[in-house]
């Protein structure tokens, strides 16, 4: 069988998804029997050759990202959006809560470490787009794999599905399904909040390792987040941050989480303790129903 020719590229991202691919270590070898990575930031090839599969990591934030994405689409038979930034817009997307002018001024002019700063305007620097976008909002995408980053295992499974021309399956239930923490309150059919108060994780000396975070008054995005990440964060005693994005039947993550939290945790505490918007839309703002600040 001819090897599948693959190109990978980085848009606006942290390189984490590429690192996750490398984290496959020796498990990369069987993949490389079937794949030929001809272009990648790892092997430092700049041009995009004609390939069977183009893999893009990162969200589309500036004109350079946009051009590279379009170039990839032109040269690739299939496109895989790899990771949360490419699939959902990712954490970069939180920039959409502000006008572009305000973002640039905050970074270059009104920054604590800047004296008489100006917004760079050199023609060689790519310009920021008005809004951060997920890859499918710019080009057609054939496969999408969320995760910040996806686990090496998820990447390997997805690539094997693509190589074998199978439908790429991603989990459809929420993280609670995968989470092994125990419940005392959530399953009791009584109209009561599961805790009296909401606590910030920063303020706790000790977090119970076996008990549902919500029942400890800690805001966990698990209920509104797709499973499939092997519940790494909750196993590491950290509440879910929602990087896998909303499930297939939810339109968006933030509003759904708010609907749900209103039944579970005392609202007053939530508003006081947490940045509900930042938490709810941390990874998926560009694909939400209202994906950016209202145009003036």
């Amino acid at each position: 069988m001819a090897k599948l020719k693959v190109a990978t590229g980085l848009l606006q991202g942290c390189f984490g998804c590429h690192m996750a691919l490398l984290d496959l270590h020796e498990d990369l070898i069987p993949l490389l029997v079937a794949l030929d990575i001809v272009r990648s930031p790892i092997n430092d090839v700049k041009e995009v050759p004609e390939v069977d599969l183009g893999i893009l990591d990162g969200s589309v934030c500036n004109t350079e990202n946009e051009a590279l994405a379009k170039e990839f689409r032109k040269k690739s038979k299939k496109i895989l959006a790899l990771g949360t930034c490419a699939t959902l817009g990712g954490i970069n997307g939180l920039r959409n809560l502000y006008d572009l002018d305000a973002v640039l001024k905050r970074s270059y002019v009104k920054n604590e470490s800047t004296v008489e700063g100006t917004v760079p305007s050199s023609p060689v620097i790519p310009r920021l787009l008005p809004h951060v976008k997920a890859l499918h909002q710019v080009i057609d995408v054939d496969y999408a794999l969320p995760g910040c980053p996806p686990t090496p295992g998820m990447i390997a499974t997805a690539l094997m599905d693509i190589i074998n021309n199978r439908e790429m399956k991603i989990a459809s239930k929420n993280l609670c399904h995968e989470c092994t923490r125990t419940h005392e309150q959530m399953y009791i059919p009584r109209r009561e909040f599961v805790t009296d108060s909401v606590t910030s994780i920063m303020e706790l000396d000790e977090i119970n390792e076996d008990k549902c975070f919500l029942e400890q008054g800690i805001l966990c995005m698990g209920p509104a987040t797709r499973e499939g990440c092997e519940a790494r964060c909750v196993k590491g005693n950290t509440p879910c941050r929602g990087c896998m994005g909303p499930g297939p039947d939810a339109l968006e993550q933030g509003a759904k989480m708010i609907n749900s939290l209103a039944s579970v945790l005392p609202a007053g505490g939530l508003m006081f303790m947490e940045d509900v918007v930042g938490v709810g839309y941390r990874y998926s703002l560009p694909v939400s129903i209202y994906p950016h600040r209202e145009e003036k």
Partner: protein
Amino acid sequence: MNIGLFLSEGDGEISKTVDVKALAAQFSERMPVSVLDSLQNAASHRAIIRQVEDRNLDAVVLAGESPLFYKKTRNGERLLSMLNAAGINPNRLAITNIHEQVALPHRSTPEEATKKAKVLIDVSIEKVLLSKLVDLIEVSPRRSVTVIGTTAAGLFAAQRLLERNFDVDFLDREEVRALNGFRNQTQPTLAAIKNHPKAKFHVSKISDFYGYAGNYRINLEDGKKLRAGGIIVAIGDDLKMTDELYPFLRLERNEKGLFKTLSADTAVTETVQQGIFLIPETPTIAAAISLADSAAMSCDSMLSQNAIRHELFVSEVDEEVCGGCGTCIKTCIFHAAEIDPVKKLSSTNIKRCVGCGNCVSACPTGARDQISGSTAYYLSAIRILSTYKPPSGPRLLYVVCEGCGYPSLDFAGNSGIEYPTGVMPLAVRCAGRLDTQFILEAFKQGFSGVVICKCKDDHCLNIVGNTDLDRRANLFRSVLSSRGISPDRLRIFGVSDCDGASCVTSAVDFMKFLTNMGRA
């Protein structure tokens, strides 16, 4: 799907304002359309059924009087059951209100009223297109009745039922409260009932209540379990007991907070719950007796049927998506959401589910959906409603709950109050069904403002729907601000049933506020 559209001229009331003929011409390109002089008379009903049979229709859209008319009158009920018999599933029938909510309140702007009517009919067509078939079950009625309240009226109703061979259970806080009032008049009846082998008295309170008309289960605090085909409530003006019963019986309440019947003149003992009858407080014993007779008679004719049909308008769970977080368990006040802790999968107990949709809003994954109004339908409806552009002034998405908001808006139309056409009504089952995602969608579609008109405190037929909406909306306001949408553009207010004036005043005030904000 083969949809037929039936337009009513409302005996001239609708066609005076809305150009029904023009509407018929527009829609006839897409589906069979019939124009009838009214949807209320026997001849039109026969005409509708004939069309359904001749044209082999499997869905029907009726555009005319308010859907409440079909629920509250014998005539309307009859049409619905005829349609059912002709093979139209209840979810394949949509009713567009172009009378109370278009023709009457927009009398002075007929052209705009016609455009708005078209959009509302489009929403109904979308509703049947996106609907899933609803299952029907048949319950064989039990020949037993629980009479709540041992008032004189309760005793007289029970006496009638005992004569007709029903088992009767009395339930009250005290043994026989009738003796406090009309002692002389009730003493003989009481004696007869006390000795009757089929009558039992229980002094306790309800701890759990569920089931359908024809077969209710009533668990008492003292551990006794009653079963009843029908229930007659005869507690007079006992407000304390009304408060206790309200979370179980889910009856409408009047301004004083007491339970009320469907209508004060034509449905004097029927309530919104098919199997529960109410004998309202009366000043004289004669009136009490006649109402008691009426209640007993209604109860008897309901329970003498071979079978009572129930539409299972419940919440359903997408098993591929539910991960067992338990949010629905914490949300449902009726204990209808159940969970398998091992499989981590929630399910709906159809005997308990009232179909309010509160769990559907709460479900963080979208695994739950409502059979009578799916998320896809509401989103689509919001998009279609946004296609109407009023000639001037702001455009409001006016969400009304079926409990209090909808009747109030109807009442406004009936009382001759006019308001701008930019008020676009969207009926939801209960305020608790209002997923905050819909609010975002409305702003995305360019509505100037969103109004949610819900039942005021302690009037929600689903007990907590109105307060759960408040909880969600309060948290949600920060999301609106984060998008640069002023949270003031979302307004929520509670009305009591048939408070048309305040319903419209609030909308008009809000429109002025939005205009001043520059949101016209």
